[in-house]
């Protein structure tokens, strides 16, 4: 992307990455109104930062950096001015469909809840891991070493496994 991003291309990229943006918003905001504000802020910052996109990096690396940075800043700002809304209150829970899917949907909601309970940086790490980014990509996005990424992911996964195990007991 050059100094002035092409509008049509930009819209296309947003469309292609809408799920990522939505999932990041949902991971850092508990209520609908905040999620919309955050999505707006992320898109604005992506547009504003488009000129600084370095083609040495992949577009997704750049996009994750901008989106997660904006989300963390937004979350921290909200944390300063109000108490965090209890996690279960207003998360976008995936609606249940049929009985056969019930357990699966419960797992999605549980995973979301678990992500919400993580600290800001761990939350970013976990989203990237779940999006199946390589350790190298995660290291570039977060700004820590690959070894560090591996250790931290393994630790978070361990906690997550315990959480699911406790629920299933």
């Amino acid at each position, binding site marked *: 992307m050059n100094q002035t991003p092409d*509008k049509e291309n930009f*819209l296309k990229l947003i*469309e292609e990455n*809408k*799920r990522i*943006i*939505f*999932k990041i918003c949902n991971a850092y905001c508990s209520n*609908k109104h905040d*999620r*919309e*504000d955050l*999505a*707006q*802020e992320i*898109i*604005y*910052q992506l*547009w*504003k930062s488009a000129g*600084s996109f*370095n083609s040495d990096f992949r577009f997704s690396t750049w996009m994750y*950096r*901008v989106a997660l*940075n*904006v989300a*963390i*800043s937004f979350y*921290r700002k909200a*944390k*300063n*001015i109000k108490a965090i809304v209890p996690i279960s209150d207003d998360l976008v829970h*995936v*609606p249940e469909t049929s009985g056969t899917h019930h357990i*699966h*949907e419960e*797992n*999605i909601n549980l*995973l*979301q809840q678990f992500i919400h309970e993580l*600290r*800001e*940086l761990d939350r970013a790490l976990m989203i990237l891991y*779940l*999006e*199946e980014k390589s350790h190298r990509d995660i290291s*570039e*996005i*977060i*700004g*820590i*070493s690959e*070894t*560090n990424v591996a250790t*931290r992911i393994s630790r978070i*996964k361990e906690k*997550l*496994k315990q959480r*699911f*195990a406790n629920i299933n007991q």
Partner: protein
Amino acid sequence: MEEKNIVDIWRSYDQKLEESRILNMQSWVLNLKNFEFLQSQKAKSVLNRLTTGKWFTVILGIIWVVFLVFLILNSLTINKIFFVVSAGMIAIITGIAIVVYLKQIFLIRQINHSNSIVETQDKLAHLKLSTLWVTRILFLQCPFHTTWFLNWEMLKHAPTGLLIFQVAITVAFTFLSVWLYRNISDKNMHKKWFKVLFGGSGWTSLILAKDFIEEIDEYRQDHIA
């Protein structure tokens, strides 16, 4: 729960988002036909809001300094030496605070969200903490607020008791301002007097910034405790 299962759950989240049409709730995001919309969001941007507040303070500060300089220039007589020196010091200290604020605005504008998360967030948290600097500097004005109204005539005819009271107040404010200048730092943030001084929300935001800097430092270390 196997590793693959966790990733599978996350993948199915994608499908469910599509099926349940939750994403369509944000159609305004996805159908940005009028791109000017994005430009209008500039005013709403978090960082822009931050600089707007600081610019407002800088402008008020400049008006205050200009006003003080105007008064000083119209008071350059020996009888008003207390006023000239006091107002001069207040203007200088306010000027330094304005420079610090301008530096903060410059740093905010340098924040690049496409840098790594740790780097960007560390800069933002340090910026928040740097507001302590302005507070420390501004407290140095305190003693001069106890002397600007004095003049030689007043001192010549004032009763001894009043003079002692005046000296005591000025000395107390001098000690207090120097003590605050030396002690307002992130090391003393958890102390009760610090919390009272900065008020509830101001104190909370500073504590959160300090804790986040520590968290980032810990995050950078390869060897996790």
